[in-house]
């Protein structure tokens, strides 16, 4: 009889109803996934494979970004597993998030067991308050500490979810064939414009990303301006996918980071090129960006105004595309104005593309602003050039006299 009583007591201790156990090990409640909803914005992957899916957080490793328009509250649902042989019928779950965002306690049904494992589902629940209207926010990460309780009084930890969460000021401008809601666009924009609300402040703070010639994507990887000197990447998508591109793309990235906040500016994308004036019978349609080293001019008799001459066959940038290659040369490329993450980017151009907002020219490749076109010319150029081809040889003639041509601009809305 004593053995029977002892056996019964032992069984009661070893197989408790989990809610009644005084020495219960609560680590057997595990967070499985968290899904955000309630008007969250689409975020496209930088690698071009489409938008992030759901659930945005999984214990298996998903930590996808989430974005909302300010004035909205985040909404989440979550799932858990509960390892218990004698589980109660129901339990309580709640979450406490960043920004003092509470996700209210909800009584949830304990699902039928699979072995000793039960599923728990925290229903779709809006956060306790909306993100402040018209204010940009940046949470890296936005954490939610999850808790469960058997009685709604005593709470125990049930895991933490972490997601990067972006709050944009207004609804982003609609996507186009070029402007997409990419991850880095959100990240760069919200990271720099955190707590800002006015157009002017958002533009100014987003621009600060470009000032130090180190433009970073959401992973803190460098985005290079001409890592290879003839990068074929000319779109925002290709910049973000390849992390290396031409000038067009940095202008587009800057504009995209403005547009993602709902800032509207038309006639914002400027294509600049020489005015195509004629000198010595040829059209001036090239310029060189600082610095170039000028040797002894060899073509003064051919064209006194453009006395320096280089020649090349087929192209100045043959494989492996790391330096200009000339058959003969009076001038040569030197380290000068750095571009994003590149000390000496390409610098022999027909055209360049920059941003114009509220009368200010923003050159996102070089991280500089200008009040007018003339200022660009004198701050950044070492000279103008024209070229002609004779047989298989192209003759490029140069001048350091910046009065020999001028810049024209063509403006579109990006």
């Amino acid at each position, binding site marked *: 009889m004593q053995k029977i009583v002892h056996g019964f007591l032992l069984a009661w201790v070893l197989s408790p109803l989990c809610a009644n156990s005084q020495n219960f090990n609560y680590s057997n409640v595990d967070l499985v996934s968290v899904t955000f909803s309630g008007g969250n914005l689409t975020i496209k992957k930088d690698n071009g494979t489409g938008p992030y899916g759901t659930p945005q957080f999984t214990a298996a490793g998903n930590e996808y970004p989430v974005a909302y328009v300010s004035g909205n509250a985040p909404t989440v649902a979550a799932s858990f597993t509960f390892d218990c042989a004698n589980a109660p019928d129901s339990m309580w779950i709640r979450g406490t998030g960043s920004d003092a965002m509470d996700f209210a306690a909800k009584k949830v049904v304990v699902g039928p067991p699979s072995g000793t494992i039960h599923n728990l589902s925290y229903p779709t629940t809006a956060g306790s308050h909306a993100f402040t209207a018209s204010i940009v926010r940046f949470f890296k990460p936005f954490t939610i500490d999850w808790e469960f309780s058997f009685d709604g009084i005593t709470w125990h930890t049930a895991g933490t979810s972490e997601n990067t969460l972006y709050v944009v000021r207004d609804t982003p401008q609609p996507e186009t064939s070029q402007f997409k809601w990419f991850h880095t666009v959100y990240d760069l924009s919200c990271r720099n414009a955190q707590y800002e609300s006015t157009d002017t402040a958002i533009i100014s703070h987003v621009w600060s990303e470009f000032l130090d010639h180190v433009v970073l994507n959401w992973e803190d990887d460098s985005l290079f301006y001409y890592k290879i000197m003839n990068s074929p990447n000319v779109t925002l998508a290709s910049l973000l996918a390849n992390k290396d591109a031409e000038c067009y793309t940095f202008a587009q990235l800057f504009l995209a980071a403005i547009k993602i906040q709902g800032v509207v500016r038309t006639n914002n994308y400027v294509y600049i090129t020489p005015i195509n004036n004629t000198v010595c019978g040829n059209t001036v349609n090239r310029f060189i960006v600082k610095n170039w080293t000028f040797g002894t001019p060899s073509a003064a008799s051919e064209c006194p105004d453009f006395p320096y001459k280089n020649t090349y066959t087929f192209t100045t940038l043959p494989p492996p595309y790391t330096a200009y290659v000339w058959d003969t040369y009076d001038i040569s490329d030197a380290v000068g104005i750095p571009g994003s993450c590149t000390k000496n980017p390409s610098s022999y151009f027909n055209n360049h593309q920059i941003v114009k907002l509220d009368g200010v020219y923003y050159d996102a490749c070089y991280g500089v602003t200008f009040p007018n076109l003339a200022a660009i010319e004198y701050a950044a150029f070492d000279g103008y050039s024209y070229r002609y081809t004779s047989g298989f040889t*192209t003759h490029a003639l140069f001048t350091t006299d910046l009065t020999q041509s001028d810049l024209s601009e063509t403006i579109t809305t990006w």
Partner: protein
Amino acid sequence: MRFIAFIVLFVIAFTLHGQNIERKIIIENGHYFYTTIDEQHQIATMHTGDVSAPLKKERTLAMPSGRNYNDPVIPFSWDFHNGDVYAVNFLVNPLNDRMEALKRFSFNSLKEWEKSGSVQDMIALSTDYTPFAKFEPYNYVTKQSNILSNFFFDGIAINDSTYSMVISNKNEISWWTFNGRYWLQSNVWYVTALNYFSLFKWDHKTYMYAWDGTVYKMTEEKMVPAAILEETPPLKDITLVINRDKNSVSYFKNFSFNSEKSMNENLEDRLVNVFVSMKKR
């Protein structure tokens, strides 16, 4: 070389599975010609083959030209006439001068991609390729206004020495002809192009298939609605077929080609003759 082979496969795959044909297919001497644009590098490929042979046997030739992806899209402006290919090289590249965009090169000079070097090399070639003529229509519109809006263009070869182009910006459409020596502006109409348009010639006249499906006959005085089609789809929904062997201009509603079938088999029962089925608008 592996990279180039990838590009070729890429182009073929999308051509046969939905990559856009740029504006039109030209059929001449039992062969078809059409162009596509690489979706990553802006560069054009000319596709050509026997109209009776399976499309999978077509040749894909690298073109030293292309177009950009700017929004709104201006489809690649190209034409094929008497063994020459005409193209407006409007890809964005820091060395590509828009004023030098108009190119003409011999069809026989085009090589398959695997013999043409890298995409970068082809882009470099395109930017230094001697222009056929200065792009005066572009110069004109940008002198009128340096803000481009409703900006579109297309050009076709009229004969060996004459090239015709229509260009629009803001609320103006102008028609230009290059006669081998200089450009003549035939006329200017104050009409807003809401989207792109395509030119074609038929019976020695120049026509414009407009964005909304209206086909205009271009005369020096005005753009005259040429006729009405039973069905006049917007231009974005169709591809023109210029069949010089049959002296016809027709269109088909866009669909995915079957690479196992010939061009004739693919287009069978899909073509709508532009002129036969036209009615007054």
